[in-house]
């Protein structure tokens, strides 16, 4: 949603209940347990949320989206007597890989300009944009392949700094930098 117009002011209310309606708390906990038990990995769950029709995405609210995603995944994966396998890893997404990171802090990079059908974690507002590597993180499970069960194929993760003007052009606010965590395949070196 980064950069979109038309959503108005942020409605910050003090002392709001964590779960204003009881079903929201149950959906939150159900999703956590269902993911832990292997209904879907977290990336597949996020992708199920993203696959919602756009009007429902906005109308259903946060836990409404989780409910919708659980229904989608249950319909796709809990058919007949199909057994659900518990995931191998239940902990961190960090993985050891036997190659070095391609980039180091300070390197100039450009993001790729791709609009895949599947899941990705490169925000739309940061495609084909120039940035600078701010920090190199360990390799992590790559959501783009993990979300549709094509494997974890771990990739190095970087925090990339983007000047606000690079993202928003003339309308950008002064002295603002946006830092985005991006996987190595999204990035190419620039001269």
């Amino acid at each position, binding site marked *: *949603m980064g950069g979109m117009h038309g959503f108005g002011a942020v409605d910050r209310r003090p002392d709001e209940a964590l779960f204003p309606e009881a079903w929201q*708390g149950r959906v939150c906990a*159900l999703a*956590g347990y269902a993911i832990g038990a292997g209904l879907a990995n977290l990336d597949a769950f996020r992708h199920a949320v993203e696959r919602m029709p756009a009007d429902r995405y*906005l109308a259903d609210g946060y836990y409404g989206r989780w409910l919708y995603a659980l229904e989608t995944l249950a319909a796709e994966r809990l058919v007949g007597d199909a057994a659900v396998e518990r995931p191998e890893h239940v902990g*961190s997404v960090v993985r050891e890989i036997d190659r070095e990171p391609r980039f180091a802090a300070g390197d100039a990079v450009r993001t790729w300009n791709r609009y895949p059908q599947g899941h990705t974690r490169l925000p739309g507002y940061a495609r084909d944009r120039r940035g600078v590597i701010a920090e190199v*993180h360990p390799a992590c499970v790559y959501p783009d392949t993990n979300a549709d069960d094509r494997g974890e194929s771990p990739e190095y993760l970087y925090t990339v700094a983007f000047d606000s003007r690079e993202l928003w052009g003339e309308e950008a606010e002064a002295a*603002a930098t946006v830092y985005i965590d991006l996987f190595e395949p999204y990035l190419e070196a620039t001269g």
Partner: protein
Amino acid sequence: MTADHRHGSESPETRTEAIEALLVGKGLVKSAAVDALVERYEQDIGPLRGARVVAKAWTDPKFRARLLEDGMPAIRELGFGDNTDAHVARLVVKENTESVHNLVVCTLCSCYPWAVLGLPPAWYKSPAYRSRAVREPRRLLAELGLDLSPDVEVRVWDSSAEVRYMVLPQRPEGTDGLGAEELTDLVTRDSMIGVERLQRTG
């Protein structure tokens, strides 16, 4: 938009009951565990953890250095960072100063540092916050009551992967004599997201 029979037209309450019954029936979930987890979210896991981390960082320079170096091992020293949010790769803590203000958002979904702040507030998950925090952070902060000087650099952290961000707010003036408990009481959730700067009250 096409009707999707999987999602029905019933109320969310009814749909939640149905999906819970299905997941329980398939052996993926136990209802008693759901009850317990909801209670835990509501009572145990909240921004008080983050406030304790901040108060400790204000009073213990070595801890502060470890926290800024690598957040997760540092919060474990205080007994936090249990299996809440176990998939997270790192916790990164960014320090506000006179010349830098940090702000945390997740434009793609609503990633949030559960281990220190609990579950996110509704406004953090709202389309308005998610869309505007990256494009016009100064205007957004001003609307929320925080007017930043043009001299202050704004750094927005879009939590687009499994790194989680927390802001270490500046310690307010005039709090030198306060103990850990009193300092903890000063720290608000919103200051650790970066939509507020702290002042001593009362």
